[in-house]
């Protein structure tokens, strides 16, 4: 019988474009101290520290070793995982398994990325098989552009819908003290007038490169109940990976291939008795690298039928005040320190369940939340959180 696991502490840095005032270790230290303060624990009580980071982005080999003193992991067990964009999701899953197994009672799970230290696009382009793909690589941006074109054509979504998603994200970000891009966008028109980056994606449509860290403290049931009155239970996790799409890397322009989100949700929902996601789950923090992808993901995460993703945003269903809020925190399009982003999704979903999300708290009561992680190529990690099991 696996042990039950709860999140008892949440901490983030204030995510920014550049953090020249700190080095990588110091930045992570901020998030760790915030999480410990939130849980009212000291680092002494933490039994293991698990890291997630994509080391090629900062050009630092073994980054978890470098921050042993600042983070307080020296003298403690731990390790680092790196699975690309889903690294943060993988570290949450690993932390979950380590506590569920009984090997650890209190584990600290950290995701971080300090993207002002390197060239993200070059590092992403280096993810193609060295002897194969570099020839026609365009980084993540080109891939998403192709996917957006295909979504427009197959689903009938218009640029207006993408702009509505962007507006929703910015409204959330402006109310989230930790978010990176707070643009103060006022209307769909304002967005439609802005410039293209890689057609049809506008500069506004794409996520930023952020510097930030996010830390979570996982505890086993016995400890969790002693530490906090509001533990957020990790009900289940699901990991699905696959080789790159045939016709793309990060997105499938043909609209025919199976998304791992679809498979992962099928498995997770079946195991947890979820038959009507928008009713059985109260909100979602999803990993959407662009607003176009958010609409596409609504479909693959079974929030709506195929080709209807844009209708959810048109009807305001996924707004903060809506019936099924998605990314009230501003999402990835407002904040994206890659190694930390999936951990931030879990953190934000947990804050919603605790009712601690301040000004970006969803209007309806959140008892169950889904946090997703996405990575190249076509990787998904899902975390299902509940107020009570």
């Amino acid at each position, binding site marked *: *019988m*696996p*042990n039950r696991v709860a999140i008892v502490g949440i901490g983030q840095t204030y995510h920014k474009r550049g953090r020249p005032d700190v*080095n990588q270790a110091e930045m992570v230290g901020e998030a760790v101290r915030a999480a410990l303060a939130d849980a009212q624990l000291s680092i002494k009580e933490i039994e293991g*520290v698990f890291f997630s980071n*994509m*080391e*090629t*982005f900062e*050009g*630092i*080999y*073994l980054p*978890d*070793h*470098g*921050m*042993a*003193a600042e983070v307080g992991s*020296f*003298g*403690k*067990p*731990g*390790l*680092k*995982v*790196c*699975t*690309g964009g889903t690294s943060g999701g*993988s570290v949450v*899953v*690993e932390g*979950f*398994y*380590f506590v*569920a*197994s*009984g*090997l650890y009672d209190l584990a600290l799970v950290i995701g971080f990325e300090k993207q002002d230290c390197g060239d993200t696009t070059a*590092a*992403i382009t*280096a*993810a193609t*098989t*060295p*002897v194969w793909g570099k020839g026609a690589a365009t980084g993540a941006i080109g891939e998403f552009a192709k996917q957006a074109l295909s979504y427009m054509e197959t689903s009938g979504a218009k640029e207006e819908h993408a702009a509505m998603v962007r507006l929703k994200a910015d409204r959330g970000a402006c109310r989230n003290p930790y978010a990176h891009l707070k643009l103060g966008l006022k209307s769909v028109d304002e967005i439609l007038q802005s410039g293209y980056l890689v057609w049809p994606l506008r500069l506004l449509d794409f996520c930023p490169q952020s510097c930030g860290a996010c830390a979570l403290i996982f505890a086993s049931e016995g400890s969790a109940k002693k530490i906090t009155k509001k533990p957020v239970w990790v009900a289940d996790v*699901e*990991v*699905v*990976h*696959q*080789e*790159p799409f045939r016709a793309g890397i990060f997105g499938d322009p043909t609209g025919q291939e*199976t998304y*791992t989100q679809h*498979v992962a949700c099928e498995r997770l929902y079946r195991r947890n008795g979820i038959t009507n996601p928008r009713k059985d789950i109260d909100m979602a923090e999803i990993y959407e690298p662009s607003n176009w992808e958010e609409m596409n993901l609504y479909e693959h995460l079974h929030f709506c039928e195929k080709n209807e993703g844009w209708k959810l945003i048109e009807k305001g269903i996924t707004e903060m005040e809506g019936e099924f809020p998605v990314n009230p925190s501003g999402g990835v399009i407002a904040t994206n320190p890659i190694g930390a982003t999936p951990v931030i999704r879990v953190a934000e979903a947990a804050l919603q369940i605790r009712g601690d999300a301040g000004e970006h708290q969803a209007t309806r009561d959140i008892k169950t939340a889904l946090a997703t992680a996405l*990575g*190249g*190529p076509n990787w998904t990690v899902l975390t299902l959180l509940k107020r009570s099991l």
Partner: protein
Amino acid sequence: MAERVGIVAVGQTKYHPNRSDVNEEELAYEVIKQVLEATGLTLSDIDSAVTCSQDFWDGRTISNMNVQHVVGAHMGHEDKVAEDGINALYVGMSQVLSGHQDIVLVVAHMKESQGEKSLIENAAFDPALMRPLGLDFLSTAALQAKRYMYKYGITAEQCAKVAVRNRSNAKNNPFAQEPMDITVEDVLGSKMLSSPIRHLDTKPVSDGACAMILTREEKARKLTSKPVWILGASNCYETHYLGDRDLANCDALVKAAKKAYSMAGIKNPLKQIDVAEISGEYSYQELLWMEGLGFCGRGEGGMLIDSGVTKMGGKLPVNPSGGVLPGNPNGVAGMTRVAEAVLQLRGEAGDRQVKGAKVALAHGVTGICGQHQCVMILGNT
């Protein structure tokens, strides 16, 4: 803990200085095929895969993309650890113990021949303070060796004995890369790399992979007649900056060993452990790590190797496989140690078999001067 975790099959490649005939995927598949054939499982039977590789060494961001399909991760559960291979095994163990995953495939691969060792290792150092000094793991190991030898009077001859014994043991290991008949004089006469570390005190560049399959006790007994149980395991970090610790200590190893021993019920390592496979790219490290593992007191590593306790036929043979010195890629070395320990406990270690081995210790190390240590205790009863 409910059911124990059992290792049901292990596979290794013959370690080689340059496997230019294969890419990472084919290299990993060689060992995956070995473990699948041994158990009669197919890739579709694998519930979860834990891979271990370093983006910096593979020269590719998200280096697990290199081995995705060969671990059967199509629409499957997959994770990648970025430390020494033995840690991937630790993660696999937690997955099985958590009750959430059943059959776990663990694979580590690395082709050291692909990259420039010094440049890659230099990237592990703090960019502002230590990198500009041009340090790599060899030069810092040399600092540690010097400190260790100075504090406790360990001699170069004692370090050389580690190399002599390991290279000789490797002659009985069909997977070993460079078995050799050398003497202490040969080691002390070999080219000085970074004092006091000489060429024969260290290992050659190596390519290779290692894989194993783990599952819970009940299933393990069905998949093999000789399951090997993980009785205890733990890892531990040390501080990073060289000046923050006395390099002649290995506190992280002491802590990791303590936790692993307590899980396995080991109170007297020399008595209760029948064979030990210890990682160490530099000869002095084995002496220091043996102290950390409690095989002898602090500063007594040199006396321990002089005593003959650790040679084949001794009270606690160390590295019957030859260990890392004859050639093992650094990201795979720890997992190879576990594979060798498993072979010992299954009685399948051929000419290097330690008779009647029932409890084995395997050890892996990552980072500068052994900043990250991992210890596993395995048993066959």
